[in-house]
């Protein structure tokens, strides 16, 4: 077992350093998710004025997602199209990026467009990233390049985090001086975990 110690330690250190900024994003966003009132006071959402414009002809005959993508290309806007609402005379959809929400409403009869923005700021950017890709709108989720990359990164962070827990337990076990107090820490953690789940369920 001892012969693996140096290589496990090296991997634990490098992988841990790499994912630490992402763990920061996930941790800070938890606090923001849990205390939205506080965040609204610290970092209020800014609403710049709505922009009205007109589009050249848009190909409305393809899929809703392709139409929405064609619209944002013409408007020179990029981001993740969240969901699409369509009626006989309009198509509207939010285009999101971390910290910035843009809502686009197109009148398909006269090709006029209303663009509404919400600048949500850095703290809410972390919550957006935390909740993406998430369980909703799976059929169109990942229609932007950044979210495709983020999807891979979030998975990688989780798998690396799991590796860090196993390698961390191994590294701790090899340190004889920390064994007893470490066992107490595990026991305390297990006790707290079980108690809280028993309370909830």
């Amino acid at each position: 077992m001892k012969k693996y110690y140096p290589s496990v330690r090296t991997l634990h250190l490098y992988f841990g350093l790499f994912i630490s900024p992402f763990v920061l994003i996930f941790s800070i966003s938890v606090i923001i998710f849990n205390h939205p009132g506080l965040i609204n006071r610290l970092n209020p959402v800014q609403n710049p004025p709505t922009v009205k414009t007109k589009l050249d002809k848009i190909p409305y005959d393809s899929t809703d997602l392709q139409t929405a993508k064609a619209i944002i290309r013409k408007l020179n806007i990029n981001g993740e199209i969240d969901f699409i609402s369509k009626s006989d005379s309009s198509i509207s959809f939010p285009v999101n990026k971390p910290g910035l929400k843009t809502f686009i409403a197109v009148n398909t009869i006269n090709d006029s467009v209303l663009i509404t923005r919400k600048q949500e700021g850095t703290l809410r950017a972390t919550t957006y990233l935390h909740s993406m890709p998430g369980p909703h709108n799976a059929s169109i989720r990942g229609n932007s390049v950044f979210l495709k990359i983020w999807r891979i990164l979030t998975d990688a962070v989780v798998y690396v985090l799991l590796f860090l827990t196993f390698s961390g337990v191994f590294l701790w076990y090899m340190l004889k001086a920390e064994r007893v107090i470490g066992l107490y820490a595990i026991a305390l953690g297990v006790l707290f975990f079980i108690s809280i789940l028993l309370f909830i369920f």
Partner: protein
Amino acid sequence: MQSQRLSKELNFWGRKVHIHLGLFLLLFIWLFSFSGLLLNHGDWKISNFWDKRKETQIVTPIHASTSSDSSTRLKDIMSQLKIAGEISDVKMWPDSIYFRVSKPGEVRNMEVNFITGVCTQKELQYNLAGKIRTLHSFNGVDKNNPGRQPNWIITDIWRLSMDGIATGLLLLCISSWIMWFKIRERYRWGWFVLILGFGAAIYFIFVLRIL
């Protein structure tokens, strides 16, 4: 000399915190990692809890209180039915009240008719994957109504625990930087790896929205 001593102390305590806090949080890290994967991979067979939900309808006679205050009435109804959970979506009319009582993995849509004295509960029960998934985001917060506070003490405890776990993870990160900084000469690639990670995080949080 003093800065050397401070650095030594910082490293000593950073190491202690990193090891023991990490061990304490072990099960929570596994829980949130697993539930995060379930949330992001709805296409996995195990994630599909919705199709496997159990739905039941229970009709119970109830003694309706005469109070005009909705919270008094809710407390009275819940104590008669011996149910507990996070209450939301309350709608009250002169002759009836509708509300939802949620726990991770369990949702009850309640409708009480004060005239007939009948309570109709539509109960949804999720499987283990559904319970774990809903636990991940169970904080009693309504993002459309930020002033709303949790009304079930267990929600408060769980929310506080999630804050604590998040703070613990922040400490794990900070202690890891302190520990690495002391041995940075031996692990030279640490700079590269850390800058790569921070670069990517900064791109997503700060840069992306201005591009």
